[in-house]
């Protein structure tokens, strides 16, 4: 099976292409009209396979497939996702997830060294002329936030992929994306809310950040403390999004960045997605790519070790050039700093000519 839009390999069960986000024809009979001879052969990278496995695992209903035995003791895993013998949590299949849909775009999400599982999620849409990077970070102190983060990222990506963006001026496109990122945040919130179960005292919740590069138009939006950076090769590096966090509020109130971010409460977020969220209207930011550079969207598992945009650009530029290798290297670096949180790095190389 291949995507009719970009030609990437897709699974029979997929509703959307994982590479470009195009909605796939629902009926299997439609797909059957493509004879094997007419399918362009697309090599499937290990990264794509890994991302695909992740999707399939998460989409399977518990009663459709027997859960694999507990990784810790070999006991049976209950429908609630925990071992019925030793109480270990079943793997969500996301300890280390990578994706590189095009040669200029890559994403890596990693469990880190301390957290028992990865509750971050990313989703990427790439189309002719534009790209969207989405990262959601599940709130660890809430229940099943990994499911919320995954659902939210997927929903935002799918909404953006389905939009008809005007081919007009930069202003038109900027206006379009500013509206779409707000819609994407609402769709992400709806998806996160749908993962809550009845009577949950601490329902699943997650952050949300999206960055879109459409030609030289850059639009970013966030709820919570996951971030988007624009790191041009020349000119000032920018942190596009503003955290909804305790630390940011302190900085606004005049406390120094170092002092605020060193506080144990620094990461307490003041806004999030989920059923108990008071407000999910994202703060929207725009910028212009005046030259080539890296669009980086990441969770706090990375930026907590390197928050300043200029320093972060130096760090990014010190890594291997190829996007996936670069993203992997940034994740390795964060793990070397302690890996205290889940780490998600999504990178897109923007504005190179030729």
């Amino acid at each position, binding site marked *: 099976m291949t995507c009719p839009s970009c030609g990437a390999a897709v699974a029979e069960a997929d509703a959307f292409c994982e590479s470009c986000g195009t909605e796939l024809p629902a009926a299997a009979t439609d797909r059957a009209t493509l004879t094997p001879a007419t399918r362009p052969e697309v090599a499937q990278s290990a990264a794509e396979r890994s991302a695909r496995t992740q999707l399939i695992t998460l989409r399977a209903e518990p009663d459709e497939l027997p859960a694999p035995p507990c990784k810790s*003791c070999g006991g049976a895993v*209950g429908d*609630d996702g*925990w*071992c*019925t*013998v*030793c*109480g*270990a*949590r079943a793997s969500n299949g996301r300890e280390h997830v990578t994706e590189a849909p095009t040669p200029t775009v890559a994403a890596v999400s990693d469990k880190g*060294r*301390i*957290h*028992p*599982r990865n509750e971050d999620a990313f989703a990427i849409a790439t189309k002719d002329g534009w790209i969207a990077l989405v990262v959601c970070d599940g709130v660890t*102190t809430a*229940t099943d936030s990994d499911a919320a983060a995954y659902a939210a990222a997927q929903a935002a990506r799918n909404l953006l992929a389905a939009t008809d963006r005007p081919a007009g001026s930069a202003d038109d496109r900027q206006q379009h994306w500013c509206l779409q990122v707000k819609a994407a945040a609402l769709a992400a919130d709806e998806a996160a809310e749908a993962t809550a179960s*009845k*009577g*949950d*005292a*601490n329902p699943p919740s997650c952050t949300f950040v999206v960055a879109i590069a459409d030609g030289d138009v850059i639009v970013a939006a966030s709820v919570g403390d996951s971030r988007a950076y624009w790191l041009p090769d020349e000119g000032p590096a920018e942190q596009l999004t503003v955290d909804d966090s305790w630390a940011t509020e302190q900085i606004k109130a005049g406390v120094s960045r170092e002092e605020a971010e060193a506080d*144990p*409460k620094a990461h307490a977020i003041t806004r999030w997605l989920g059923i*108990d969220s008071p407000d999910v209207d994202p703060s929207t930011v725009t910028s212009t790519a005046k030259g080539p550079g890296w669009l980086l969207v990441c969770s706090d598992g990375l930026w907590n070790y390197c928050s300043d945009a200029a320093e972060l650009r130096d760090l990014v530029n010190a890594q291997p050039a190829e996007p996936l290798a670069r993203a992997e290297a940034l994740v390795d670096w964060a793990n070397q700093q302690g890996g205290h949180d889940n780490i998600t790095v999504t990178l897109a190389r923007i504005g190179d000519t030729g």
Partner: protein
Amino acid sequence: MADWTAQVFQNEYLPDGATDVHAIVTVTSQGTGQAGENGGAAEAIIIDCSGSMGAPRSKIIAARQAAAAAIDEIADGTWFAVIAGVGLAQAVYPQTGMVQASERTRAVASAAVSQLSPQGGTAIGQWLLTGFEAFRAAPAAQRHAILLTDGKNEGESAQQLQSAIDTVTGEFQCDCRGVGADWDVNELRGIADALLGTVELIADPADMAADFQAMMQTAMGRGIADAKLKVWAPQGAELLFVRQVAPTVADLTDRRVNVTPLITEYPTGAWGDESRDYHVAVRVPPKTLGAEQLVARVQIEVGGQVVTQGLVKALWSDQTELTTRINPAVAHYTGQVELAQVIQEGLAAKAEGDTDTATFKLGRAAQLAAETGNEDATQKLKKVVDIEDPVTGTVRLKRDVAKLDEMALDTASTKTTRVRPSA
């Protein structure tokens, strides 16, 4: 179809090396329907008719009225019987077994209870066994009794009473009521605890009819005949205790039935539309920082089906701002359980003339009642002690305390107030 939920309140973050996990699980049932909808219901009304019920005469008159008020609330089709507690219990209506409630049978039963007269002694064990016999004659799965007494169990030995309690435990539920000041709170509490019922003091016989009416209404509103609490703990874990902490305190630990080496089960009796809180404590071997473990599944099972489940977890962390938090629900109920204990111990010491211990225990009770906002307990304590400083728990025993006030404090000691933690 009843709707069940289980909410877990806990701090799952444990510091390095910690082993004990505490959680409050709030179980709520809604839409349970009416008693007897699944397999029929049966009610027994057991009225103390010992000689003392005639002194003052207002007691037996109030008891007749209360029994009639309860009979009025029995829904059509429910099996029932009225039993008079004398030296040996006597069927009042029907002559043997039980009848199904209808306008006619309720009228006949009411006429029969209006003839109840005080005679004979108090042998509560015999009464329970007679009640059991009546229940066995009725084809009903849900069995509930109301037992009224005004005195101590003097017509039989303590062993006889205990043996009767053991025989009927698990066979029917029993709400116990003591009228006047001559019954034994501990004795009746023992019966009510074993038979999954409540115990209350009725100080004024005039209040009895309203209480009986309310009790029967509650019983008729319990559409779930029998629910079991099931607790799973992982291999290598030790289940420290399982307690009901609201609406009343009851240690369930000794009532456990081992289902598998990892699962224990506790009877909880019939449920209406209500909410009960359980405190579960589990000890697990410590894990490395960052590790996570499920330490208990707390489930409600009805008719062999798990209808709701709460998950209790542990997550070892080096973040002290997370690990040092005390969950407000756990703290609240830990205080309430200690409150019940010190009230009972304080009153027992006072009865034995151990003034120092009584002062100390009741002082601690005053402190805990203030800390946990149990206003009812504070009011009842004030009738037994002068509270000089609730913060430090400094109290003085009052000189002339009415026996009824002490009994009221004792009886209500297991009633807890609720907290609703903000999240």
